[in-house]
């Protein structure tokens, strides 16, 4: 699976086509009047790796949950492949979500956990098992199928969670700070594996994080968000070749992107303070 991919330069040069997700002035106001998210216009194309970056309270998780269909926008709307949520799901489009913690079923072995989306879709166990095995193989957990989640480290549990999201070959993968609870070394390793997977499987990913380094390392595009009220502040295209490896982390351009995003975040929080 390692970078055998023939780099047909994707995303930026790819023909526009229908966006995978489009937010059209989507905003979220809670019944108690809390403004979680100002109207957002955002369009994500197939093959992109888009990161939502911002401090807590900037509405990045809210936006992701709206994309996942777990939250309804208060005003405005979202389109998936140019259609409504249920409509495109009915056509067989797949969205999968990776949460902040692994959210595994503690009573089920690893392979049963990974198989869950297939079980719920009514795939026969015999047909599901090879797909489970290959998903576990993809995340580097070959041979761990018979373990219980509690027997695995936090990083490994997160890998199981990613395998579960990949088992159904998602058209769109949503990740809500998936590595936020891990130590930095483990996080870097998982980031490197994730970007390789994204490249090899031609995934479309929306990734939420508050780590600037993670955003620069992973993304084709970073959406910088600001808090109080939550809103999209700026977008930065990370114009660096793929597949990226850890060597990218020590380059001049990596540092330059990090500085640019840091400055944008400071600017965003200053702008928030004056308007508050």
């Amino acid at each position, binding site marked *: 699976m390692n970078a055998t991919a023939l780099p047909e330069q994707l995303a930026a040069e790819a023909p526009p086509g229908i966006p995978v997700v489009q937010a059209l002035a989507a905003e979220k106001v809670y019944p108690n009047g809390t403004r979680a998210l100002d109207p957002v216009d955002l369009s994500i194309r197939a093959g992109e790796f888009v990161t939502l970056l911002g401090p807590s309270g900037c509405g990045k998780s809210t936006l992701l949950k709206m994309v*996942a*269909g*777990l939250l309804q926008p208060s005003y405005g709307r979202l389109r998936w492949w140019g259609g409504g949520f249920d409509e495109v*799901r009915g056509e067989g489009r797949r*969205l*999968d*979500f990776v*949460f*902040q*913690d692994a*959210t595994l*079923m*503690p*009573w*089920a072995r690893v392979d049963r956990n990974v198989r*869950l*989306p297939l*079980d*719920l*879709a009514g795939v026969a166990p015999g047909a599901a098992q090879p797909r489970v095995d290959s998903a576990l193989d993809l995340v580097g957990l070959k041979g761990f199928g018979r373990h*219980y*989640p*509690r027997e695995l480290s936090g990083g490994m549990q997160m890998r199981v969670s990613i395998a579960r999201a990949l088992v159904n070959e998602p058209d769109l993968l949503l990740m809500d700070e998936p590595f936020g609870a891990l130590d930095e070394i483990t996080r870097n390793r998982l980031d490197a594996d994730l970007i390789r997977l994204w490249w090899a499987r031609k995934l479309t990913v929306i990734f939420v994080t508050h780590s600037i380094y993670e955003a620069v390392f992973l993304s084709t595009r970073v959406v910088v968000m600001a808090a109080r009220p939550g809103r999209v502040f700026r977008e930065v295209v990370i114009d660096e070749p793929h597949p990226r490896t850890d060597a990218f982390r020590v380059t001049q351009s990596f540092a330059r992107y990090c500085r640019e995003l840091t400055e944008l975040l400071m600017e965003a929080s200053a702008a928030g303070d004056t308007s508050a």
Partner: protein
Amino acid sequence: MTPLARNPKFARIAAPLMVGVLVIVVWHALVTLLKVPQYLVPGPVSVARTLVTDWGLLSSSLLVTLKITFLAFACAVVLGTTIAFLFVQSRWIEVSFFPYAVLMQVTPVVAIAPLIIIWVKNPTIALTICATLVALFPIISNTTLGLRSVNPGLLSLFRMNRATRMQTLLRLRIPSALPYFFGGLRISSGLALIGAVVAEFVAGTGGTGAGLAYQILQAGFQLNIPRLFAALLLITVTGVLLFALMVWLSRLFLGTWHDSEMVQEG
């Protein structure tokens, strides 16, 4: 000897056993040294002898009490889980009926037992109803709590995968509820026994259907204190065995994955 003493499993069994032996020895010594009369405090030897000589009487009473305990416990489990499932179907059902479940719990069984005994002719059924009332609440409240204590992330995941209500119940809610359910079982099994004994005290049914409570009452009237002690001992041992059975069941079902069963190994 030393490695055995360091073994935590051995310690868990041996330590309480040694306390028990010590208590019996001290009890025996005090009773013989102070020449305490039989009708006040019988010694352990005399209790053991009564247990053997009166075994015919006591064992049939034990069977009666056990029968009512298990009937009541089974009713409580079936009823309790059914009610809990109804409660989690809708907030309205729970809000409307939960106060009455509490009402049932806080009403002392001795206070309503006479009524039930008047209403229900068959003494076995009457006693079973009383004991069920005592044992029911922990099952309802624990199972309801368990069915609601679902990891919200997993619930979202099920929703995103368009799981049906039945799939969510079978694959998520019921397994999540199991640890709570077994917690309820432990409390409830003991309560079923207590309920069975207390109800019989109130009912005072004698004859062929006499349980251990009746033997205690009779032995008290006749100042047959060794028999009273023997009956008491049988009730206590039954309670401990019931509890152990529940612990074993819970380990059987949760042992491989649940934290509560893991830490005990340490």
